[in-house]
């Protein structure tokens, strides 16, 4: 299997799942379309285009195109550390409050991806949290969460 075979196969199943899911909202008729019609058409279109993509990719596979390693030679864990930190930020933002959560987030990223010196980490985390608080909460009046500690 090459990359396009895998991705088109996956899209084919996603399209199929959308079509199946749309049926619960009823399709109606062309003269009186119901809520499921448009998502059904979208799912069907995904299946058709992904199906044609699979055929195209299979032809290329027969011509010798192989699976290209998408993580080869890359520090891919960094990408997932960032993703995990985004989810952690979302979960901790309300309980910890904007200032503390932001300082921890910035400090963590400065340490975890390409480790910086501690003064840079602490100073950067503190300054970024305070400056962004002043810009967004005080100046732009965004309502950022205060958290358990009230700040």
């Amino acid at each position, binding site marked *: 299997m090459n990359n396009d075979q895998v991705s088109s196969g996956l899209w084919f199943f996603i399209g199929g799942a959308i079509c199946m899911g749309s049926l619960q909202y009823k399709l109606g008729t062309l003269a009186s*379309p119901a809520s499921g019609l448009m998502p059904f058409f979208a799912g069907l279109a995904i299946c058709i*285009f992904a199906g044609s993509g699979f055929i195209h990719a299979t032809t290329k596979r027969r011509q010798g195109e192989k699976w290209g390693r998408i993580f080869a030679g890359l*520090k891919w864990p960094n990408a997932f550390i960032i*993703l995990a930190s985004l989810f952690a930020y979302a979960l901790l933002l309300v309980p910890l409050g904007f200032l503390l959560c932001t300082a921890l987030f910035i400090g963590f990223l400065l340490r975890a991806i390409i480790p910086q010196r501690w003064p840079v980490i602490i100073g950067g985390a503190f300054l*970024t949290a305070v400056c962004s608080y002043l810009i967004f909460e005080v100046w732009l009046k965004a309502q950022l969460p205060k958290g358990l500690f009230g700040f």
Partner: protein
Amino acid sequence: MDVLGNIWVGFQTAFQPMNLLFCFLGVLMGTLVGVLPGLGPVAAMSLLLPTTFHVSPVSAIILLAGIYYGAMYGGSTTSILVNIPGEVASVVTCLDGYQMARQGRAGPALGISALGSFMAGTLSTVGLMFLAPPLAEVALKFGPPEYFSLMTVGLTILSFLASGPMWKALVMAAFGLFLGCVGIDTVTATFRFSFNIIELSDGIGLVPVAMGLFGISEVMLNVEKSMEQSIFETKIKALLPTLKDWADSLWPIARGTVLGFFLGILPGGGAFIASFTSYALEKKLSRHPEKFGTGMIAGVAGPESANNAATGGAFIPLLSLGIPANAVMALLLGAFILHGITPGPMLIQQHPKIFWGPVASMYLGNVMLLVLNLPLIGLWVKILKVPYPILFPLILLFCLIGAYSLNNSVIDVMIMAVFGLIGYFLKKFQYEAAPLVLAFVLGPMMENSLRQSLFMSEGSLLIFFQRPISTALMGTAIVLLVFPLVPWFKKKRFIIPA
């Protein structure tokens, strides 16, 4: 006289101190995001969209529009000095711009890029001023079938011109249409694919989707690689091009302006298509095509003018028809809707200040960019030297705040992270996100138009082929879909390199 009167109203609006400030901030931030590789106008506009809630709609549109055309100016700086395009429309500028810099001619390259951009940006604003109002008059004759066909042809053109195989772009467009269906169906009041999550009942927000697909995924991809970037050390002197440079550049600028403007109007077109086409055209028309890629000033002047002219053109379908031509305009449409304004044929009549104010501000913005950019090139080079390990946490934080402050909801932050992951894998497997975003925005409008058309025709799909404008548009879409299947055309298809 009517147009002159409206222009006068536009300048009165644009010259208000607050609007001048927002215009300045817009072009400044636009140049900055254009300079910084990996942060394009879509990401920047989605970042700033929530912060525009507290300002008037005119100021908000002036700010966001400034980011778009400002980014086109800024993008050339990195292309010329670092050989890294600040944003996708400046990719071709690398070819000759960087070679000019290596030959000690960074100054004229930057100078002609800024001056050409200024001329093209100004002329395309004139075009916008005179073309949008009559087009809006024509659009009043559009019914649901015409709108549906126009949106279909827009998505097809964008998929047709996308990098890589067309089927991938079409899958993206279809997936975008599906995402646009999530949330309450306004006709039947049925909740679709919202999985009992209250935040999804109004649909998925454009801002978290765009920030995830364009901002977060880009950072995820960048941190995987080595984050060292070298800046070509050269003294930038004599920014003003010589007479010979002008002679070599004037026609490329003129051709780039006209080409870029009309390609910008095209639904599915945009700045990056304009710059690639302009480069190809200049190479074809040149007496020395073999010298392109070795530091030809025409290879900088043409594409840079084209991408700036395209920004003006791209406003036309949005402001006169209410249909965004590309992902950036889709975000701008989102901004209009967030401020309770529906762009379209009635916009010019009902909200003249919101049309003419931002249009007039584009003249001022272009002047500001010219005045700002040449003296500030040194500053942009310094900003380029900020190490990415310091820069990326800030980009992520702005995305987080932007997503959260939209509805004060952490669900939006999670949606953004999920779309960051989706965008990351899409890029790994070489799928383009632009058709997805455009289809996502057009989805609800397309569904409404389709429904109304089918009600009108009592269920006959032939309605799309019984009205002249709709037939022409649908015919174009079908031709574009069928052409790639023709073996001869497969080899000839114009593909934008990824």
